[in-house]
């Protein structure tokens, strides 16, 4: 009994001293030695600007961060502030684990891009931080070898396919492939297919979200063309493998993100690089976009402090610092995008332009399952014996079933 009493007193005392100071738990994914120092110094600066708030940073990894967040929320030992990938927002919003921030952030949307990805059923659940998209990278030397002008870039699918075809026919004897095609890697393959899908005008759902229209004529056409590139000109490997091959001069054209620029810079790669927007039947087409967002736990007792913190982290200046360290091309802050750092680099400009012509997957709590079905359809058509039309039809039926549940 005595012990319990002492314990109670200790707990009370501890509570009393802590109440003056708030500790925010922040879970985030940036562990790369290039960016981690920036994250740390942003946190330190925040703490010195707000002496009554402590921030405790927990690092997550991409391989199992999602799992940790799910468990954290489920067990009630979750974070106050959490970094979420755009495709996870709907899932956590629908299950009530992240807070509706519409009233807190709604007035503040003008200076930032990416709100569409954080909006679920009309309410805003997270603040955009760093966005990302995919652009077309080409090896200029291969283009020249294939007989193109030194400044020529494809502006339509017809020209895009022609470039790949000509690079491939000019170079295959020397081991140069026209197109880097992804193998069936989870979470990666569909991101490569969707730009084709969207650019041909296909949609996953009807606008009112009532029906899945995955196997429309446009969609079938997109998959046929994608398969054709894969079959005829494809150097097929993991994303990493394709990028290696591209950087080693074995692949002429790939679709990739800003991390490729980072690799080229950090590894000091010698490549005659050209970049351009993803084409469509006309210019431009629609690429894939996603991003990193900051959300607040519904269970957090420190919502005000968390909001202040989120605002601090995503401020234009801090985004700029982050992007420079990580070589990220798409800060969500429009002010940051105006900085000379982005304006002076032709490839970063491609990314900044591309994100205006990019779509993201529907904000849907069942997206993980839907994504799986789409990926399965592409896999069947590319690597199995499925025809594009039947593979898409099968996925459409599966997705319709998921929607009914």
């Amino acid at each position, binding site marked *: 009994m005595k012990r319990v009493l002492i314990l109670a007193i200790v707990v009370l005392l501890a509570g009393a001293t802590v109440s003056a100071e708030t500790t925010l738990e922040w879970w985030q994914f940036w562990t790369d030695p290039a960016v981690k120092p920036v994250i740390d110094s942003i946190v330190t600066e925040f703490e010195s600007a707000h002496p009554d708030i402590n921030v405790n940073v927990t*690092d997550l*990894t991409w*391989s*199992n961060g999602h*799992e*940790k967040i799910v*468990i954290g929320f489920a067990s009630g030992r979750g974070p106050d502030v959490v970094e979420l990938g755009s495709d996870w927002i709907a899932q956590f919003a629908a299950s009530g684990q992240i807070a509706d921030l519409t009233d807190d952030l709604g007035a503040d949307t003008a200076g930032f891009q990416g709100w569409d990805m954080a909006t679920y059923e009309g309410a805003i659940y997270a603040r955009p931080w760093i966005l990302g998209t995919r652009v077309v990278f080409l090896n200029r030397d291969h283009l020249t070898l294939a007989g193109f002008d030194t400044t020529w870039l494809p502006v339509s699918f017809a020209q895009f396919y022609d470039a790949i075809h000509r690079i491939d026919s000019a170079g295959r004897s020397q081991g140069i492939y026209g197109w880097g095609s992804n193998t069936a890697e989870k979470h990666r393959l569909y991101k490569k297919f969707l730009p084709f899908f969207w650019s041909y005008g296909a949609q996953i759902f009807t606008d009112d979200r009532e029906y899945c229209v995955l196997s429309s004529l446009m969609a079938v056409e997109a998959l046929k063309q994608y398969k054709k590139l894969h079959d005829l000109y494809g150097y097929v490997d993991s994303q990493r493998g394709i990028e290696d091959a591209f950087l*080693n001069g074995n692949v002429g054209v790939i679709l990739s993100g800003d*991390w490729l620029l980072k690799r080229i810079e950090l590894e000091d790669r010698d490549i005659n690089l050209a970049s351009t927007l993803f084409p469509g039947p006309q210019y431009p087409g629609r690429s894939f976009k996603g991003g990193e967002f900051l959300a607040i736990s519904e269970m957090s007792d420190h919502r005000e402090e968390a909001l202040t913190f989120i605002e601090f982290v995503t401020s234009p200046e801090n985004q700029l610092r982050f992007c420079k360290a990580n070589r990220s091309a798409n800060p969500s802050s429009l002010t940051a995008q105006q900085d000379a750092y982005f304006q002076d680099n032709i490839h970063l400009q491609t990314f900044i332009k591309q994100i205006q012509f990019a779509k993201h997957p529907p904000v849907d709590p069942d997206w993980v399952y839907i994504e799986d079905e789409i990926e399965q359809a592409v896999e069947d058509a590319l690597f199995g014996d499925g025809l594009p039309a039947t593979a898409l039809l099968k996925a459409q039926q599966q997705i319709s079933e998921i929607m009914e549940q």
Partner: protein
Amino acid sequence: MVRSRSIVGSIVHYVVLVAILAVMVGPLVWMARVALLDKTATLSPDSLLSTAVTLQNFIDLFTQSGMARYMFNSLFVAVAVTVGNIIFCVMVGWVLARHRSWFTRLLFVSVVIVLMIPVHIVIIPLYLICLKGGIYDTYWALILPFLINPIGIFLARQYIETIPPSMEEAARVDGASEARILFTIVMPMAKPAIAVLGVLAFITNWNSFLFPFILTSSESMRTLPVALAMLQGHQAIDWQHLMAGSTLAVLPVLALFFIMQRQIVSGVTAGGIKQ
């Protein structure tokens, strides 16, 4: 069945043996070759013939990734489980070997049942037990469920049954406590069995992937096999480093294999290592 054979016959015999040897050991040789290759070298089958050797990949693993931590985790968990297995399996095996009652019969049945149960059935419940019990993502989750295992009990019981109980009885007459008898008489006598079950426990847990993978989520809790499997899914890793990490995972087992081959073989033929 010793039989005289012609010289031609035995040459053919050796040729076949060596060919199979190449197939069985070749992949491990390739692993070591790639591990010692410079990271900028392009991999091709010809790399096998290259004589260039560098330890840089290993150095990188320790300086640029958490390799030291992964190895420590693997070692710590494997050693803890091995020690637990030695103490507990002999303890239970002794009870089973020396007594016949409804209780020990029931125990023995439970041991046999667990030997037959496919482990996949406990993946989800064990995950939830660890999660709700608050040991998920801690060393406890990697150690507690494996501290005692049916194969070890089985081996200990079988061995102790072959030892006459006269020493134990003499000690009992002298007034020694049961615990004292266990630790000062049974354990030393059961050394051969302990060597077998200990080395099996160590290798099994050092190599184990499924449960360490499922029961942890932090990078700092990863064991070597989990870390290797995760590194492979990661974007920025090349074969040279991956194979260097693999070599680190194989070396301790290889060393044990050469030192304790007899024990490993006898344990394994009795139904040992569950991969």
